[in-house]
């Protein structure tokens, strides 16, 4: 029986044996099978229906049954341990379900549509209910916008991080900058888009184009890259800086040629994560770039298509071909983001300090 029964002296531990009873290895599958059978029986006999309900019921019965069996055989401590383990696994499964569901859905719907034509043609001259056409114009748009956004964000973010770690210390300016960077990480993308809209289009009088979207996305990307670069720079051991300074190397050169190269793999990973984040932002693009069905290579004049705005445009239309195209574009977007992540990992591995 349980190892924490009272002994004649009343002290629970004086009866402590080194070995206790454990559930046999077949207990877990047996409990699982038993839960299924029991739940099937319950479902057959009662008005309860439905696959989802069935799974939930099986889960609950399994949890209860497993915990009870463990309590009876192994004792309270092991029973609680098993319960906690099962709850953790259950939460993991619950968290994974939406992710897997999204990926599977996008794959299933998107693969129907994606082919070479899809990737190399634009939507020019395709009517609202026609099939055909592709997302080439949107891919170009997304890639160009992501590239120019990175060009703006990376130098600013890396330099801010260098200031915060190497020069700022606890000074007032450093604390202010850290505070504002934290605030910026939380700015909703529509607010960033609105800000640039007011400045670029209303105040300065420019027309919609791809470039103001780059500015808005830079506002969203900079804090992400600042944070991760900061962490990577802090990881560089101080002894390295001191060795370089002791050689008579000025501080700025130490940072440029010793500290940053040492932190480089992590910095690159952070940059790629930042790019992956802004590649899918739709609100600033809607406000600032508009949408077009034709290819536009010029970032500075005229509306540009991008994958998120194409999805937005197509998904709202009543025709099935448009919806299919939206799924295809969604798949392309997810693949691009995954490729960026992969590239980041490869670069990090190649530049890693051995």
């Amino acid at each position: 029986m349980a190892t924490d029964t009272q002994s004649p002296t009343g002290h629970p531990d004086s009866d402590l044996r080194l070995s206790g009873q454990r559930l046999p290895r077949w207990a877990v599958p047996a409990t699982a099978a038993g839960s299924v059978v029991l739940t099937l029986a319950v479902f057959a006999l009662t008005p309860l229906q439905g696959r989802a309900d069935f799974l939930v019921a099986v889960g609950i019965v399994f949890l209860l049954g497993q915990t009870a069996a463990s309590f009876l055989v192994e004792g309270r401590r092991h029973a609680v341990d098993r319960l906690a383990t099962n709850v953790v696994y259950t939460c993991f499964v619950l968290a994974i379900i939406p992710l897997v569901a999204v990926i599977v859905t996008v794959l299933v719907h998107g693969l129907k549509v994606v082919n070479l034509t899809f990737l190399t043609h634009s939507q020019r001259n395709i009517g609202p209910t026609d099939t055909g056409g592709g997302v080439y114009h949107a891919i170009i748009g997304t890639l160009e916008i992501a590239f120019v956004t990175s060009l703006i964000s990376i130098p600013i973010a890396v330099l801010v991080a260098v200031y915060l770690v190497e020069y700022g210390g606890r000074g007032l300016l450093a604390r202010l900058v850290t505070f504002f960077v934290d605030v910026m990480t939380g700015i909703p993308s529509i607010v960033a888009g609105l800000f640039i809209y007011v400045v670029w289009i209303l105040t300065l009088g420019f027309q919609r184009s791809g470039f103001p979207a780059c500015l808005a996305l830079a506002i969203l990307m900079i804090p992400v890259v600042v944070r991760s670069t900061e962490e990577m720079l802090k990881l560089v051991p101080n002894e390295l800086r001191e060795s370089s300074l002791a050689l008579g190397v000025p501080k700025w050169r130490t940072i440029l040629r010793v500290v940053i190269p040492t932190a480089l793999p992590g910095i690159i990973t952070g940059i790629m994560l930042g790019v992956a984040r802004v590649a899918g932002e739709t609100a600033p693009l809607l406000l600032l770039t508009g949408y077009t069905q034709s290819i536009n290579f010029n970032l500075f004049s005229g509306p540009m298509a991008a994958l998120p705005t194409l999805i937005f445009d197509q998904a709202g239309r009543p025709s099935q071909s448009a919806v299919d195209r939206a799924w295809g574009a969604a798949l392309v977007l997810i693949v691009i983001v995954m490729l960026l992540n992969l590239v980041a990992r490869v670069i990090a591995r190649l530049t890693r300090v051995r």
Partner: protein
Amino acid sequence: MAKRIDVADLNVYYGKFRAVEGVTFSVEPRTITAFIGPSGCGKSTVLRSLNRMHEVLPGARTEGKVAIDGEDIYGPGVDPVNVRRTIGMVFQKPNPFPTMSIYDNVVAGLKLRGRMKRSGLDEVVEKSLRGANLWEEVKDRLDRPGSGLSGGQQQRLCIARAIAVEPQVLLMDEPCSALDPISTLAIEDLMQELKERYTIVIVTHNMQQAARVSDRTGFFNIAGTGQPGKLIEMDDTTKMFSTPTEKATEDYITGRFG
């Protein structure tokens, strides 16, 4: 090339806290001077203030005079970067630059200052590695990363790196404490060779090492926690270890405390 060091009434502060008080001593050119003393008594702090590395820490400052061949390195208008080019330092933990090869590590001091053409660098590398007694072991793998060497080899690489810039003085902060006895012996032998060209000051926890290696020894002590460290006595090594003047020195050397 080697220079003399004259320290007069050096006080070193970490913010408001006075860590070292009233230190005065001289170091002759081409000698090895060892600082010994219990932990926390300010030996490394004094060493670091000899090449203006102490002020790298935020809030740290010094008062007093440190003169290299008569020129006060804390004088007005003196650039700390130039001071550190004259006075090199080797740290306790060997730390070759991880992203650089052995070759690049040795010339890091020169390259990062922007001087010297490619052709001159090869000579400097060989000369410095020979000087650090590492040339034979690494001459065939100069483009491999510096971190691939053993601890003793890494420390000798750091020494090569420090002497490649041709300083006048070499400061060593417990250079052997992270090394095994064989590597320690190699570095101690190296110090005897380097003594002919550089003035060397080393901090060591190992009294026997100080006795083996140095010409003069300075004993630092601290009155209690929160008190500043002081230089109790500095004299020829043979005299310090046989008939020291101060009682505290004798107590430390004979192991009654520390």
